[in-house]
């Protein structure tokens, strides 16, 4: 029985993965946009930066960030930013979207835990984001005449996964808090903007006051950005890799626990009041 239960989880994971990949590839335009956005944003920053600072622009950039390639630095940040936005938005809107499609109740007819099911969705999205990261970053590294080594890719993939999954915890909190107020997209936008600004995707956080750095340290994406910049773009960082990973693992557990707590409370309340199917 327990073996069947374990296999059941794997079957659910396979089902969710298959569903999400089919959906992603059905809307190829969205997939292309997600892959192209880091280049669009980086291109805009590089263009404006060069226009503002002239030929000394890239030298100044290296002096300010420690990165010799602004394109790689910004693409890394861009991929991570887009990935975090996708995870937060997809998880936040999961209840509302399923309700609007009329499939929300169907999930409750299966023997799966709803929280686990939504986290598996986040796992599927994170896997997709790792694929996009590979595509974008390999392209930039290759364009600069280099190669992403298996070690670098392995660390980057693990760090992205470790940074994205806890965001699903934030998503579940937003989903649970806003499902009755309908405007879940506005709440996701709010959270996304502050994650994007505080994680240092496009700049080193050392340029900000200490209090901002402390707040940023509570975000898993901040540590992921630091690790990616140090491993892939060779930017010198303060903390060693294992310490960053340990912090990220602790943050992941905390975020997921909070997400589960909020969602379970909402679910219990909704079951008691008969609001699970109330739109």
């Amino acid at each position: 029985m327990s073996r069947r239960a374990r296999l059941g989880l794997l079957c659910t994971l396979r089902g969710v993965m298959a569903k999400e990949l089919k959906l992603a590839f059905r809307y190829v335009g969205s997939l292309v946009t997600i892959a192209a956005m880091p280049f669009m944003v980086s291109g805009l920053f590089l263009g404006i930066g060069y226009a503002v600072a002239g030929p000394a622009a890239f030298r100044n950039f290296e002096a300010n960030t420690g990165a010799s390639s602004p394109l790689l630095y910004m693409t890394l940040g861009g991929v991570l930013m887009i990935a975090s936005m996708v995870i937060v938005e997809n998880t936040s809107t999961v209840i509302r979207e399923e309700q609007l499609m009329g499939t929300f109740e169907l999930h409750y007819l299966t023997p799966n835990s709803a929280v686990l099911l939504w986290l598996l969705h986040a796992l599927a999205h994170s896997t997709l984001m790792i694929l996009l990261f590979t595509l974008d970053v390999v392209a930039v590294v290759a364009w600069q005449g280099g190669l992403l080594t298996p070690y670098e890719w392995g660390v980057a993939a693990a760090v992205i996964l470790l940074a994205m999954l806890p965001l699903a915890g934030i998503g579940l909190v937003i989903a649970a808090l806003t499902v009755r107020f309908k405007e879940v997209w506005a709440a996701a936008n709010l959270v996304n903007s502050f994650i994007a600004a505080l994680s240092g995707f496009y700049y080193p956080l050392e340029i900000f006051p200490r209090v901002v750095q402390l707040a940023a340290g509570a975000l898993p994406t901040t540590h992921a950005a630091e690790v990616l910049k140090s491993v892939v773009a060779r930017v010198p960082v303060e903390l060693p890799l294992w310490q960053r990973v340990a912090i990220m693992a602790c943050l992941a557990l905390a975020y997921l626990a909070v997400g589960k707590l909020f969602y379970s409370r909402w679910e219990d309340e909704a079951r008691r009041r008969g609001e699970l199917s109330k739109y």
Partner: protein
Amino acid sequence: MRRGGGGSSRSTKFARGARALLLEVEAAAEVGVRTYFRYVAWLVTDIVTTPAWLVLFITPILLFLPRDQWGDPRTLNFLFWGFILWDVVSAGLWSFGMAVRREQQMGTLEFLMLTNASRALLFSRSVYPRLISLALGLAYVYAFFRAIFGVEVLLLNPLGAAAVLLAGMATSLGFGLVYGALVFNFKNVGPLNNILQFVLLGVSGVFFPPALYPEPLRTVALATPFTYVADLLRFYAMGTQTVLDPATEWLVLTLYTAALLLAGVASLTLVERRLKKTGGLGAY
């Protein structure tokens, strides 16, 4: 619809000429403004998230300058007005360009097509809330900008700047109507909007003068209407040099805007007629 042409619910057949047009404008404005204020959470989120977007957008650009120039008022003013113009440019794609698509998704497109109202007026209803949000945006972006970066925002000629912003919104509307007709035809262009937005911002000199562009790009910039909006806005706000003479830029912008609006109205009519013939009007 009653026999003999008697009106359906909101028909403007009872009015003619300019009065009918005004009634349609009033109805479009009413629905646009009501919808805007119905989603208060979006309004609040726009305000609350502004500091985060300002930091996210401006800090990476400052990294290309030596640290002692990060507070340079001229550069920061360029970026402030660019940030404001971003809203004007994106309105063309997201608000006006996607109006048809939104009606399709809400299932109300066919009902609108049953009326005798001008399609261009119906699909430009978001210009009214966009004007409100532009005015509000100027106020709160200014407040946050000053608080974060500590520089005075230059506004040498407020009337001139306001006139350019209004003209820019009309340009954006014209561009959006033409683009909307394409959306009408090709349906799901949401992903394209994201990419097109950055291309437009880049080639239109929204953040830096096109005079700094290398030659082939400079010609492309001068062929884009938003280049003149950006150039004239910086001229009135910051006193910067324009690429062409300001009067010539006004003339080009006015003609360009008029042409875009006419093209938008005509293309919407053409696409509607074609889709009605092929039965593609209700196909999503």
